[in-house]
């Protein structure tokens, strides 16, 4: 098994799917000649040519609309957003058109589009470039949203997204792009809607997604070493469809839950997860559900303060101990 980076894993997924299916195309700002703003699509233009790897104008509403139209006619476009923060100018296309066309056409038209790009704070790029819209998007029926935390999941989820016949939005993380991990050489996918227990434990369930999984795993180490607490970490991987059963199974085992996400807390993904747990596993709970999320303010520009604003290992450990009280 090769050890590759999260970025390479995403690229490998696209490369393999470009090879496997000639309907797959890559479009976005600077994905071709510049090899991608974050070099995720590096080398693809050279290998697959300008018909498959297409640079677009700086016009998200325009080129996402282009991709949606193409997908309705059988193309399987993988659209790069330089930042998911820029999706907001293309919201009508992303939510209204892509999310509803199958329903509005009575199932006659599919929209097998993938939109991908980084959606994270923590890089000192300011409030307008640090949005994490997975909760906003996942609140729309018809849309699928995934947030890989590891190279293995990045590749497997990207391939599953490209093969899926509905719009799938892949939220990547620039801080994770260089993280390395084992990725199988053979073809595999990570099915949409299947969470993953990243660490097995007995005393507390931490539910997280995206980079919060990595933070939570580090916190779990400390909780084990310094506090003798056995923590289970459930990585949602897929926000919608949501793997309810894996969350509930873990809570039924540990009876305590801490939810960690890099979103802002208000109407975050974990608001939904907390509702799920209390409604379907109320009698299993031995303590109130707690959450750690980014502090509820526009993303702070000052790097040192931004680091404090986001869930970090210290905050996760401290909150875990409260749940365990």
């Amino acid at each position, binding site marked *: 098994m090769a050890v590759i980076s999260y970025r390479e894993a995403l690229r490998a997924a696209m490369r393999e799917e470009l090879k496997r299916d000639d309907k797959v195309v890559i479009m976005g700002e600077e994905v071709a000649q510049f090899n991608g703003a974050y070099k995720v699509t590096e080398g693809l233009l050279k290998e697959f040519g300008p018909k498959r790897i297409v640079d677009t104008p700086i016009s998200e509403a325009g080129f996402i609309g282009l991709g949606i139209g193409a997908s309705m006619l059988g193309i399987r476009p993988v659209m790069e957003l330089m930042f998911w923060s820029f999706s907001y100018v293309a919201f009508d296309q992303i939510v209204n058109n892509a999310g509803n066309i199958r329903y509005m056409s009575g199932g006659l038209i599919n929209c097998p589009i993938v939109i991908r790009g980084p959606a994270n704070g923590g890089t000192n790029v300011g409030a307008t470039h640090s949005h994490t819209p997975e909760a906003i998007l996942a609140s729309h029926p018809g849309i699928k949203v995934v947030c890989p935390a590891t190279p293995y999941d990045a590749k497997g989820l990207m391939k599953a997204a490209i093969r899926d016949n509905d719009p799938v939005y892949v939220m990547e993380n620039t801080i994770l792009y260089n993280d390395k991990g084992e990725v199988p050489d053979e073809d595999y996918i990570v099915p949409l809607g299947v969470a993953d227990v990243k660490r097995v434990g007995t005393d507390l369930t931490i539910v997280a997604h995206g980079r919060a999984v990595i933070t939570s795993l580090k916190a779990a180490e400390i909780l084990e070493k310094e506090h003798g607490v056995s923590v289970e970490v459930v990585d949602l991987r897929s926000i919608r469809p949501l793997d309810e059963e894996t969350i509930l199974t873990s809570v039924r085992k540990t009876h305590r839950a801490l939810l960690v996400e890099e979103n802002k807390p208000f109407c975050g993904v974990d608001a939904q997860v907390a509702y799920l747990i209390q409604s379907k596993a109320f*009698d299993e*709970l031995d303590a109130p559900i707690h959450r750690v999320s980014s502090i509820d303010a526009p993303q702070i520009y000052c790097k040192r303060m931004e680091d404090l604003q986001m869930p970090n290992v210290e905050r996760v450990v401290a909150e875990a101990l409260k749940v365990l009280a």
Partner: protein
Amino acid sequence: MAEIIDMPKLSDTMSVGTLVKWNIKEGQVVAFGDILAEVETDKATMELSCTVPGTILKIYAPSGTQLPVGAPICAIGKKGEAAPEPSAAPAPKAPATAVPAIPEKTDVSCVPAAPASSGAPSAQSDASRTKASPYAKRMAEKAALNVATLAGSGPGGRVVGRDVAAAASAPVASAPSGPINVAVAPPADGKGIQPDADVPVGGMRQTIARRLLESKITVPHFYLEVEVDAAPLMAMRESLNKRLAEAGGEGAIKLSVNDFILKASAEALRRVPAVNASWAGTSIRTHGAVHLSFGVALEDGLVTPVIRDAHAKTLKDIAVEAKALIGKARAKKLTPNEMSGSTFTVTNLGMYGVTGFFGIINVPNAAILSVGATIKKPVVDAHDRLVIGHRMVIGLSGDHRVVDGANAAQFLQALKQLLEEPALMLI
């Protein structure tokens, strides 16, 4: 500029804190880290350390005051600086459920938080409610334990899973549920007094085992005893029963000694109502009515039917009702309603010749009366003469959380007087 120090939130469940003790005086210079005061929270007494070095300009609340989180407690600033008015200082973090300070005349050190909005029934019920996690409740149900009897180790005293697990695995608690292997040799001659057997335990025995164990291990029992001159009572009983028998018809009932004791107990509770109360976790619940429970022995156990509103019933009412309840108890026809809701319990083993004993409190009663047999014995009378007395020993087991020795003794005193001068029961 002077800074106002607020009542801090020292635990995640703290809404009010009591200033147990000030360690500083007005005018004193304090440094970072100095202990300003001791604050009692819902969990513990904690030290409040100084975060603002300077001079104590003003102490707003004296020792012993209970204040909501966020209320100003003192001001620190430069020497000679005027202390800000506490009213001018916003108390922004004071929760909506701010609790008024304890009245100064209160001599109880730990007063339960008053309900936020008086008259709101939900606030009222919160005070007495046992906090337990859903998981703990479910575990307790499976283990046939009552969460209300467990000490909660979670935040704010919440009973959590580990508390139930500990209780369920405690040797005493597990006794009823698991067989105990006790090696006892069978009778050597092969003919014992009864078979060696494990007799399955029925529902009533389970209930007795659970409730009495719960009472004995969670209620701090104390015991008082008094000897009563039963001669006047015996004389009155004889004369009343004679008249009742002569009356015949509907009135032909026979009053038992126990009927007199029940009536006298209800009257004694009227005189010392502190005994007619229950421990309710953070409060003591006083009961307006006397609902008298009394023990009825059955072949395979014991039940305690309840005579409701005994304080408002005549001796005859009580006698008739007790007789009916005993009949129902022996026929196993008592409804759960007829066996619950008591405020005081009377047990009597006098008919077996037991001279005196102490029962286990029937939770949530604050006390149980244990009546022994009336026996003839030599006593020294008021004129220092040795005479034949008819004496009855009455024991009282009290819940020390609710009643103290003195009021329990007052109750026994009242009871003794009523039994020795039974005519008092007429008025």
